[in-house]
Structure formats: structure tokens, C-alpha cells
């Protein structure tokens, strides 16, 4: 049970950090939602308000990626091994990040 204290605290810290970082992201999400539903489609205001939406994806992916390492650590009790096993996952995350940036 004691070996789970580290991953649990790390998970909690991750939720707190992600929440703090996520405040402007949620604000952006609301603005994008409002722009999509209320601004004239294809207008300059519509394009300006939608620009930058990919940061929401970056935030979610970064949070998810860090959580997968903590989950692996909690399951195996081996933090170094969890980090080593995350490299392939990181490559895929970076591919998705690049695709999001291209689409923004």
C-alpha cells in the first residue's frame, strides 16, 4: 500500500497543475464554442476566434501523457521503467501534436 503513496500524490499534483493550466484553455474552449455557433461562418471574426484552438489539444495530451506514466508507475512500482516505456507513447503524442498544429 505504501508504494502507492508516491503515484497517488503525483496524480493529485498532476490534477492540480492541469487544473491551473487548464483555466485559460477552458476559456478558449468556450470562446471557440461561441464562435462556431454565433459568429458568421467564414468571417474574419470567426477565423480569428477559432485560431489557436490546438492549445486545448496540447493541454489534454500533455496531461494524459503524464498520467499514463504515473499509472504505469503505480501498477509496477518502477518509475524509471515507466518513463522508459513511455518513449514510444511520447513519439505518438508528438505526432498528434504536430498534426493538431498543422490543422490549427
Amino acid at each position, binding site marked *: 500500500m505504501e508504494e502507492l503513496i508516491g503515484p497517488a500524490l503525483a496524480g493529485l499534483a498532476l490534477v492540480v497543475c492541469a487544473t491551473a493550466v487548464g483555466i485559460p484553455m477552458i476559456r478558449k474552449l468556450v470562446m471557440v464554442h461561441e464562435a462556431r455557433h454565433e459568429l458568421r461562418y467564414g468571417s474574419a*471574426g470567426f477565423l480569428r476566434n477559432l485560431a489557436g484552438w490546438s492549445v486545448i489539444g496540447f493541454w489534454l495530451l500533455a496531461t*494524459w501523457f503524464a*498520467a499514463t506514466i504515473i*499509472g504505469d508507475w503505480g501498477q509496477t512500482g518502477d518509475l524509471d521503467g515507466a518513463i522508459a516505456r513511455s518513449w514510444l507513447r511520447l513519439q505518438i503524442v508528438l505526432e498528434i501534436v504536430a498534426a493538431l498544429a*498543422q490543422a490549427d
Partner: protein
Amino acid sequence: MQSADVIQKELQCSQCAGQRIYDPAQQCLVCDSCGTPERLETPDDHKAEAEFPYDPNAGGEDPRTTDAQVVHHCEGCGGDVVFVGASLSERCAYCDGPVVLRQGDSAFETMALIPYRVTRDTAQAAAEAWVGKRFAAPSDLAGIVARARVAGIYVPFWTFDSDEAVEYWASYTVRRGKRTSRRRTSGQMQVSFNDLLVPASPHVTPLIRDGILHEFDPRRLRPFRPGYIAGFAAEQHHQTVAEGLAANEADKDLLMRNKIKRDVGKSGVRDIRYHTHTSGIHYRRILLPVWILHYTYAGRAKKVVVCGIDGRAYGERPFSVWKLAGYSALVSAATVLFGLAWGAGGLL
């Protein structure tokens, strides 16, 4: 604007000599005293759709007209508005600030306007409904907005048409297996802008325009007559055509780049450069009806604008940091739980 005598004659009731104002519900002038309505339509109304050519190389602008009307000048935002007939408010329609009276205004002739169709009560309800539907808005916002009142004002707008012969250069992303590289491309295209609406007043931003004016139907334009603005404030046109075109440059550039991206049709289009030959510029100086609701939240002045044609609302809104934090915590917790389960499951 016409002379005061002509305006007074148009606003005087033919039955009881009372003062008439424009009623959006009946879409005609209505006497304040006896209620007699009078239609303002004329057989020549269709001429209001006419556009005027502009050659930027020819120079020369329309002459300004200076009339003896009293102008209400806002000391807060600098807005200048005029009233036909009796002034209805001692506050600025744009920012609700105090106004001082000035004699005479040098402005350009308004070519046409679209009269109000939405009444004050409908506009007030639309503004309040818009605020009520905001995500993550402060809980006390609806109550604050309900205490504010809408003010009607005709806002000066341009409509611009132009034909653009565009030559562009850009780069895009190419993927080959795990490798990505950039490729250069170039092309030519023809773009036509039709009835691009541009605010001719610094008090209405392009964002508010895109929020409330989704469809512009030039068939609704009417030749300018003082009767249409009786009972409302109006801002006159003070920009030259060249200034109006310059004010639209940033929006036009953004739209052009978006069209180029679509013309290239690849992913990751960047480094766009272009030059365009513009021809066929046509314009109108028009007034469009809006209702503006002012409110102050946390010491900051904000406004919600309602289109006087179809009642569509859009505006400025504050966010509740606590609500944003709450939503953020929910999304973060869900993402972390998903990630924990993924990692614990030994997936990938």
C-alpha cells in the same frame, strides 16, 4: 442630412401637428399624440441598392456636408451622434457616458439605410437571453444585465465589392512514412468580394459585426429619409472611401489568406505571401440599426449589441474564474483518470 425645416415637416403629423417617431413594430412613422401612422416607402426605394464605383488611382472623394444640426459629443468615448427631432437621451448611445452638445457636424452623405424591424422590448429580451446562455459566466451577471437598458442607434457601415486577381506563394507539409518535409507552391486565383460589411465607426468592432450581421440583404435598403431615424440616435459617416478601404485591410488580408489555404488544398499551409490586383471597387455608405445594452461588471464597461434587423445578439462578456477552474478541474480529473488507467493497463 436635410435642413431642419424639411426634417421638421416630415416629422410633423398631418392630422394633429404632433411629433412623429419611427415605430419598428409597424415599420412606419407614428404620431406620438394621435397615433396616426404614415408609411415612408416610395416607388424609388429600389434605387437605394445602388452601388457607387471608386477608383483609388483617380483620387477625389465625395464632398462633406456641414449642417447646423446639434451633435451630441461623448466626452468618454468620443462618439458623435445626432438625433432627428427631439433628443431622447443625455447619455451616449455607445458607452452610456455623458454628452456635451456641439453645433454642426462635417460628414458625408448617407446613401441608404435599413430601418429598424426589432422593437426595444424584443432587443432587451434578446440581449438578456444572450447573456443568460453564456457558459462559465458569473452568477450575478444576468441580474446586472437585467437592470441595464438598450439604446437604439443607427451605426455607419460600408459595403464594399471588389474583384481580386491574386498571385500567391506558400509552403505546405508533405509526409513520407515517418518523415515530414516542406514543399513550396505558387498559384493564381480570382476572388470576388461582394457586399463586404465594414464598420465605419470605431465603436462597433468587426467581431460584433460578425456576431450580429450574418446576412446582409441589400434589397432591404431604403433611401435615407430623416423619418426613419426619428426616435433613434444616428452616427454620421466621417470616413473617406480610402479610409474605409484601409479600415478593412486587416480583415480582407485574413480572408484572402484563408482562401489561399483552401486553394492550395494541402495540410500545414504556411509562409503565405501574395499580391493582388484590385479592380471593380464599388461601395455604399449606409446606416444599420442596432440596439446597444451597456453594463459594467467588476468596474469594466461592456456591451451587448442586438441587430435591429433580425434581433441577433452578440457582445462582450466576463468569465467567472471559479467556474472556469471548476470545469478545468473536471476535465483534468477525467483526463488524468483516463491516463492512469491507460498506463496501469500497460497499453502501448
